[in-house]
């Protein structure tokens, strides 16, 4: 299975999620690229997005602030790598806007839209770092919702 051009899907650290939505690729694209739209759904509930900044071009910024119900806010900054209007969007937190390497890179996401009659198939592939530097994320405590992950892990680990 191919996650993206030249990259092989690694079932150990990658995942793919698909949804069919009852709107055109144009509208689905807007949901992913218009900051006013993104802030309405992108945060993993019960978190919300209090700010969202998008500069929709390769090297452009995708920045948002995740706000937890307890008021804690975490800004997340990503860089767009590919922007193919109505079709394909690739971004990562491994690079900052303008392609400057980041200290905390963890994932690359590839979102594609394909028309399916009157509907649109939306596929997201999330590719993750192969796990040599995960302690850092524990230090951050919450990183783009990954804190939930660590909490779940914390709940699970004692049962091992």
């Amino acid at each position, binding site marked *: 299975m191919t996650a993206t051009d030249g990259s092989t899907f690694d079932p150990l650290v990658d995942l793919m*999620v698909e949804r069919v939505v009852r*709107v055109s690729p144009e509208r689905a694209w807007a949901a992913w690229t218009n900051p006013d739209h993104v802030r309405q759904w992108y945060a993993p509930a019960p978190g919300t997005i209090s700010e969202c900044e998008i500069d929709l071009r390769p090297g452009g910024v995708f920045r948002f602030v995740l706000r937890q119900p307890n008021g804690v806010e975490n800004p997340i900054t990503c860089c767009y790598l590919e922007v193919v209007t109505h079709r394909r969007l690739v971004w990562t937190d491994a690079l900052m806007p303008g392609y400057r390497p980041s200290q905390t890179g963890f994932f690359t996401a590839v979102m594609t839209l394909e028309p399916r009659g009157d509907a649109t198939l939306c596929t997201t592939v999330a590719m993750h770092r192969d796990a040599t530097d995960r302690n850092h994320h524990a230090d951050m405590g919450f990183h783009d919702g990954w804190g939930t992950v660590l909490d779940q892990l914390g709940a699970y680990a004692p049962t091992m």
Partner: protein
Amino acid sequence: MVASVATVDGVFRALSDPTRRDVIARLTRRPESVSALAEPFDMALPSLMQHLGVLESSGLIRSTKTGRVRTYRLVPKRLQVAEHWLAAQRDLWEHRMDQFESFANSMEGEQ
């Protein structure tokens, strides 16, 4: 919490090497002695022992010595750590995509 993250870290580091993944794959079938594990690899025994050491310290495998034969076996529970980590990532994205789906569908009839 810190210990559990270190656990995940160790498991993924252990699994980040193709030789070690191959060892794991073979131990999922049955326990093996060091010499049996070494057989298919074109690698000096000390190198293999180093890989086995990484796997054992991550908790993925365990060894016992009977006479002069050291036998390695899989610790299946520890392998689940990797699966659980990815499952949690999957939960996050499934959740996010559910929210995307609801939102996108609510755009029907909008400009």
